[in-house]
């Protein structure tokens, strides 16, 4: 089946701290059609996200499909609180790039 990269479908893909102990990820679409396409494809799921980041599913605290903003959102627990010595991303703002290349199946 033909696939399209998530980065070519979404308007915004970002990550950011949600408090000191979590990082939250937002995938936001401009068009309802693209949102529904990705949502219904099931490629963004707790299971797949855990696999992509090499973490267990219990590290994912929230997973939400947020219809009013055409957005899929999930949040993970950090291993150590933000800004602890050794943490290279105090704001959690550069943890999203692996999402960009996710293949989304589309009809030919």
């Amino acid at each position, binding site marked *: 089946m033909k696939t399209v990269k998530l980065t070519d479908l979404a308007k*915004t893909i970002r990550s*950011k*701290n*949600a*408090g*000191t*102990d*979590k990082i*939250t990820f*937002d995938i*936001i679409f*401009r068009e309802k059609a693209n949102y529904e396409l990705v949502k219904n494809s099931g490629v963004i799921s707790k299971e797949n996200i855990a696999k*992509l*980041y*090499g*973490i267990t599913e219990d590290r994912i*605290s*929230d997973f*939400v499909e*947020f219809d*009013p*903003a*055409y*957005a899929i*959102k999930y*949040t993970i*627990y950090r*291993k*150590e*609180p*933000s*800004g*602890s*010595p*050794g*943490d*290279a*991303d*105090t*704001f959690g703002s*550069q*943890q999203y790039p*692996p999402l960009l290349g996710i293949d989304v199946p589309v009809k030919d």
Partner: protein
Amino acid sequence: MSNKSMRFICPNGHLGFAPSKRESFDLGAKTRPDFYCCDSGSSDIGPGPLGGDYSVSPYEWQKHDLEMMLVAARKQGAPMIIGSAGDTGTRSRVDLYVQIIKDLARKHKMAPFKLAYFYSDVPKEYLKNKLDQGEAIEGLDGRKELTLEELEQTNRIVAVAGIHPYIKALEMGADVIIGGRSSDIAIFAAPAIKDGFPEGLSYYMGKTLECASFCAEPYGAKESVIGEITAEDVKVTAMSPYQRCTVASVAGHAMYERSNPYFEYMAGGMIDMTNCHYEQYDEKTCRVTGPVFVPIEGKIKVKLEGSGKVGERFVGIAGIRDPYTIKHIDKVLDWAREQVKERFGEEGYELYYNVYGKNGVMGELEPIKESKSHELCIVCQGIAETKEMAEEITMTGTRQIFYARLPEVKGTAGTAAFGFEEVLPATAGYKWTINHTVSVDDPMELFDVRLIEVKEGKTQ
């Protein structure tokens, strides 16, 4: 409600962190908003500023934004509210902002006005007494109940104020309020709730406005936005000529920096945004209806933030170009770690490597396991009780990368490149030790509001 509607301007999502944009603020001020509100804090900046009691925002930028707001607010005679003074909202930061306000009053020869301020600092003794009495200090975000050991590792604690001290300050007749650490939502919600507007809408308005133009599009930070609350709705309008508040931008902002877009917790309860309805009201304005406030059952829980010092810190930087060394970088770093261990033992210090070009940014979360980079930058951090020891650990941990023994390396005159022959002193390492809540009968037991009259302008 004494008025049918109330309007709030917010110029910046974190006052002082980067200067506010003037044009959109002036356009907003011209419409004579009822309140000038801005939060100045964030936990995003890491645990260092709270633990070490310093700001990361430059003094001149803090003064710039306070001056912009104060001059407009006093000229109009509208109240001005600043939350979480100086990034952390600690006592020293509140004092700093109070002094800036006094200095500005003198500079601009302002007529006397009433300034309220409160501290958010929580003495360790207060929490120790609670623990001694067997009271649980509940953990947030998966943390367990606070232990005595964690409390003892903590240098400084602030409580995150809700609307309560702000309502008190307004009741005392404050024209300007400088708050200690606060929920950024509270500085907007407090005046609206005090005036009888629905709590759900009041808190929701705060949530939308607190990051200023982050609720508008296209992306552009530090631009002013205006929120208007009525008994039925909240309308939020972008002030900068190039931005609009749209259904997408405002709904999208509801989930920004939060783990869940439907629920927002604060001292006293929670906003349920499940049934929020968003509509485009006019070109630059989005209208929102439907948020519901759900008050907490039982005692009010106030969030606590605490930071503890891990140790003094030095930083070293090394570059690697040899392809074999790059391929075996983990072994090289194990070697360097081993050298530190030989000298300093297993405990009493911390040693970290961030390997840029491999997984320096994402660490354990990096899905790409094999680096394709032809060169690496290694940042080494050594943390210990004294500066001398931290320096020596970092020096050993960095320099031993140069001496790493790998059988296949062709270059035998050093396996790393140094741009300079030293390790650099950094601010001490800190850690968030407390992300918990304390239950209180009266939230005001944590916040003591004081009122003074600023007459500096008149004495000139």
